[in-house]
């Protein structure tokens, strides 16, 4: 990413004269230009960001970033560098331009406003330090306690199990014999993982809560990050790949469902049919349609190319957290707060009756806690369901019968994955341990903490 790096340099450069000026001359200097990062930003965070944040954008204004502050909102640019008298931000803080900000509260102290004036007068320099990750590929995270696990995925050949860590994805050998690699990125959390059908690329969706969302595409063989795309103001949820592996869909905190191209990272589609956070997506068999679920209770069916809304598959009951599609049919299971997995067909039956959920095939039994994860086995015969109830249950899809229960967990399970071979089921969640169960019996086969702990590393060091 040469361009990005250059940008960082430029920013650092811009900050240099201000900082030096302040340090060298010290108290002799009558007016040291205030720092955006140290003086201005905290005031904005404390008094302004409640309303002027990406999720709310009152007056179409977002004051969480320097860039958007400069851009301004409805009423024009936020400020004119070098000219505090004509800067909107200041005029609304000192009451020259109504309404007085912060809205409804007392005016800010004179000294604070003076600080803003001085900063704008000095050209409103941005001295935000370049956010250097505390970790990198060469210096992977050091753990003192195991982070929660939010995503698991087996490679199509069944050799690797990808596990979410903190700011990284860990590649374990699926047989439990050890760690194969660590894919360290920027995002604090990885919410979902998906291998392309050819097994060459691993798509990871996540981000840092309340800050940004990120899509990562990893080259599995080289363990290199091929591409990172940052989108949204919060983590991405429910990443899924089209059946041919060319497109990736995900849900966002701004209620959108978006589809990007895997090869270029470009956005292909952004839809706005949901009314709350979207937490799960799945393509149909032919990749032309997509089902998404979210906190607005809805499982929405739409065209994956035009983004046109087709219909809600379900009766709106409670928040939905997960969706999965049958591997060989256009049928989905959704689940969430209500604790009941509902099995729907994506196409309406020929006969429909008023007041009935014509698309509903079956409601499975009620779980012991909210549902966070659902998955079909590769042959489509079994369904595994897990969640806050700290257990996973395997059902026979055709009959709805309970086949096995995977117990022994002490807290909620956030994610699960069937091994392509169909015999093993991986579960993980709050506890930060991966547990592998036998599908047929539910028996626990093995368990491990997927991240290297500080104590272990110290112990293994010579």
């Amino acid at each position, binding site marked *: 990413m040469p361009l990005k790096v250059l940008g960082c340099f430029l920013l650092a450069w811009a900050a240099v004269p201000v900082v030096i000026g302040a340090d060298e001359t010290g108290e002799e200097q009558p007016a040291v230009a205030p720092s955006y990062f140290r003086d201005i930003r905290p005031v904005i*965070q404390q008094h302004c*960001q409640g309303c002027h944040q990406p*999720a709310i954008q009152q007056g179409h204004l977002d004051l969480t970033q320097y860039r958007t502050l400069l851009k301004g909102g409805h009423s024009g640019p936020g400020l004119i560098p070098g000219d505090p008298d004509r800067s909107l931000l200041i005029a609304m803080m000192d009451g020259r331009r109504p309404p007085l900000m912060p809205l409804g509260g007392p005016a800010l102290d004179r000294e604070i406003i003076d600080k803003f004036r001085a900063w704008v007068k000095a050209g409103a320099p941005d001295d935000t330090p370049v956010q250097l990750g505390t970790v990198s590929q060469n210096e992977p995270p050091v*753990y003192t306690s195991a982070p929660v696990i939010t995503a698991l995925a087996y490679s199509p050949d069944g050799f690797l199990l990808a596990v979410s860590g903190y700011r990284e994805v860990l590649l374990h050998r699926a047989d439990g014999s050890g760690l194969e690699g660590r894919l360290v990125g920027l995002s*604090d959390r990885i919410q979902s993982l998906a291998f392309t059908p050819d097994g060459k690329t691993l798509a990871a969706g996540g981000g840092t809560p309340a800050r940004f969302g990120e899509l990562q595409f990893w080259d599995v063989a080289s363990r290199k990050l091929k591409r990172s795309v940052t989108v949204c103001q919060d983590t991405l949820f429910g990443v899924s790949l089209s059946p041919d592996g060319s497109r990736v869909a995900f849900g966002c905190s701004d209620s959108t469902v978006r589809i990007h191209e895997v090869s270029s990272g470009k956005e292909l589609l952004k839809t706005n049919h949901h009314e709350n956070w979207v937490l799960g997506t799945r393509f149909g068999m032919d990749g032309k349609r997509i089902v998404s679920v979210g*906190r607005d209770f809805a499982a929405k069916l739409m065209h994956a190319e035009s983004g046109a809304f087709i219909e809600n598959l379900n009766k709106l009951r409670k928040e939905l957290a997960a969706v999965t599609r049958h591997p060989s049919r256009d049928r989905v299971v959704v689940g969430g707060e209500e604790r009941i997995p509902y099995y729907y067909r994506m196409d309406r039956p020929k006969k429909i009756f008023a007041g009935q959920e014509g698309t509903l095939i079956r409601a499975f039994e009620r779980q012991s806690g909210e549902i*966070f994860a659902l998955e079909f086995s590769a042959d489509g015969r079994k369904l595994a369901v897990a969640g806050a109830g700290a257990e996973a249950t395997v059902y026979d899809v055709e009959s709805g019968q309970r086949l096995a229960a995977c117990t022994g967990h002490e807290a*909620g399970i*956030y994610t699960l994955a069937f091994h392509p071979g169909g015999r093993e089921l991986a579960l993980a969640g709050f506890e930060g341990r991966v547990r592998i169960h036998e599908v047929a019996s539910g028996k626990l086969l093995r368990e491990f903490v997927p991240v290297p702990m500080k104590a272990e590393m110290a112990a293994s060091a010579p």
Partner: protein
Amino acid sequence: MNSKSRATCLWVGGLMLAVAVSGVRAGDRSAGAPEEIRELQVQPGGLVFSRPGELRRILVTGISAGGERLDLTETVGIDPQGGIVELGPDSYLRAVREGETRVTVRAGGHSAEIAVRVDASPGSPRTTFLRDVLPIMNKVGCSQGVCHGAAKGKNGFKLSLRGYDAEFDYRSLLYDMSGRRFNRADPPQSLMLAKPTQQVAHGGGLRLDLGSSYYKSILAWIEQEVPFGDPEVDRVVGLEVHPGEIFMHAPGRSQQVVVVARYADGSTRDVTRESHLGSSNGEAVAVEGSGVKGIRTGESTLMVRYEGQFEMVPVTVLDPSPGFVWTALPQYNQIDELVDRKLQRLRIQPSPLADDAEFLRRVSLDLTGRIPEPERIRAFVQDPTETRRKRSRAIDELIRGQAYADYWTLKWGDLLRSNRKFMSYKGMWTFREWLGQSIADNKPYDALVRELLTAKGSTFENPAANFFLSARGATAAMETTTQLFLGVRMVCAQCHDHPFEKWTQNQYFEMAAFFSAIGVRPGFESGEEVVYLKRVDNDLKHPKDGRVVNPQFLVPAGGPSSIPSAADRDRRPALVEWLTSRENPFFARAIVNRVWSYFFHRGIISPVDDIRASNPPVNEALLAALAEDFENHDFDLQHLMRTITNSRVYQTTFRANRWNRHDDRNFSHQIPRRLGAESLADAIALATGVRFELPEMPEDYSAVQVPDPHVGKGGFLDLFGRPQREEPCECERRSDVSLPHALNLVNGPILADAVSAPEGRIATLIQQGKSDSQLVEDLHLSTLSRPPTSQEMQVALAHLKRSGSRAAGAQDLLWALLNSNGFLFNR
């Protein structure tokens, strides 16, 4: 802190102490006169810290020679010897290391010593959600009703209201959205820290300061892998508040408090800063930080809340003016003794007895809802019998009369919602008949309640069964029963545990389960209904999990040895046994308090049907004595009313003196109350000699006798706040005074027509050939229930002379009298 700076600190502290102490002295002249301090007291005595780093606050009180207590907490000098503890902020002591020591406290030239012990810390301190995190979230406001505690949460994050459901909040923080709110791998990056510190945008604003002790506690909790804690160890079981009572000798004083929480495992913690303080009377006493300030003379209750537990501290601010001398007035019965006892302590001089006319008007209105006839007043005032005996006889006469039964049928009809809307027309009359007879018979209160609550059968044949028509369904019957007969409002607990009370949602349904077998089906006649016990579908299911709820008493005291279960059909006899038991802590108190409120401007607890620990009585001894006397006289309501009306306190004039004019809660003088709608209508009718028009009522019916609010709906009675009998709440009757009331009386046709009616009082008097002065006297007696003063007489006579006709002049006078406070108010 190095030794040099600590020395500086001590020196500065000493200087501040000197300044502050002289400040107290300088303030003497303006606000009361605290005397020289003779002794220091330190609370709590004997501090035990469970680990180094812990903070505990001490209170330092200076005691004067006269026994006055002055809070010196904020001006105190503390000398922590031996380095076991050090001085923290706000006169907190911070434990430094394990050991025992004595700490010297200095103020006002005196010193006191306290023993301090610091126990060893067993490894790193254990931080749990229950004990540490939840109280912080409540304190900084996360779970307020307008934030994440709202029924739908806020911005996708939902907590229980004020943290009453710790389990729910824990799951919400940990599991919702796959645990995005905490970050064990990099705890400071946790969203639940980044949001309230505004490191990322937060709609709720800045709630935590980076690096504050709260911040550190939450951080430590995440570092310790977010443990929930053990309810058997970490639950708060009680609070200790110091001081237990606050008594200020003048406005302007303040008093700090110390709050110590006691946990299930026996350990304690200083939670002063995390506690919520509230003052019941903000005009007299204001909360300032972790303490209170006296604003003006008066009383208040300081409510201290922490994690579902609460304690009450009575606060009194005395009138500091010099020259108060207690003048003892005669005491007629125990009421006077108990009221006087408190008044004397508060330096409030009660007013003397009202004169005979004032007394007769008041007692007639309070016992019968009517003002006395002019002849009755003349006879009473002229009766030479000794005042106390004369009044006692008048009380007995009033209670024996039909007007008494009519009036109390109206009052009980309000509370029991005698209303054709619920009971059908015939049912309502049947019920009214039964109520009237019960009152005329002076049926003991417990028997009345028993008949109502255990009634079944046809509502036409068994009138009491109508009770279950105005309170239909198990929850409505339960809410009505608890509010009417126990004075307890349970309705908040239907959806969540009561935020300021101990009542839980489970208790709400356990009490309702006593009524879940009651069914109502139509009878043979039109409008007739039959109350019966259901054989099937007669249990109550908990809305949270659908389990069948077994009935259970609100408090165990007074319950029968075997409590019915959900399998028993009629659970009501057991309920009534518990309800009317003398062990029941609410039953007698609720009714004596309610009855008291009908004779004064307020109950001893107010509102009368909102009895809870956080709403304490203004005079506990008085309430307890009345309740005990009521029980000892077999729940005799007439005896209770006799006791009240025969007291000097009741018979006191409404005129205040300089020592009791601020008092509005200790019954040192009567406080005028506007006449109720029905009494006002009847009083106007009596004064003008013109019947008050009542649609569908026989001619000889007065407004007090009206059977339900459908008679004359939307008219005069409703304008003046007649209750609509929709709620079992005393608050339904309004007795406010507002512009529409004044306009109606000044300009409305009811008064104007009645004053000038050809068959009215004035016409009759003129016809009878009364002289001008007789006319004036009669008009005063029939409105203000007293003869005119000589000045009033002169003014009135002059007006009559000036007027074109005697009739017109007299009408002006009557109209003016009817619009005067002396008429509109019972005082």
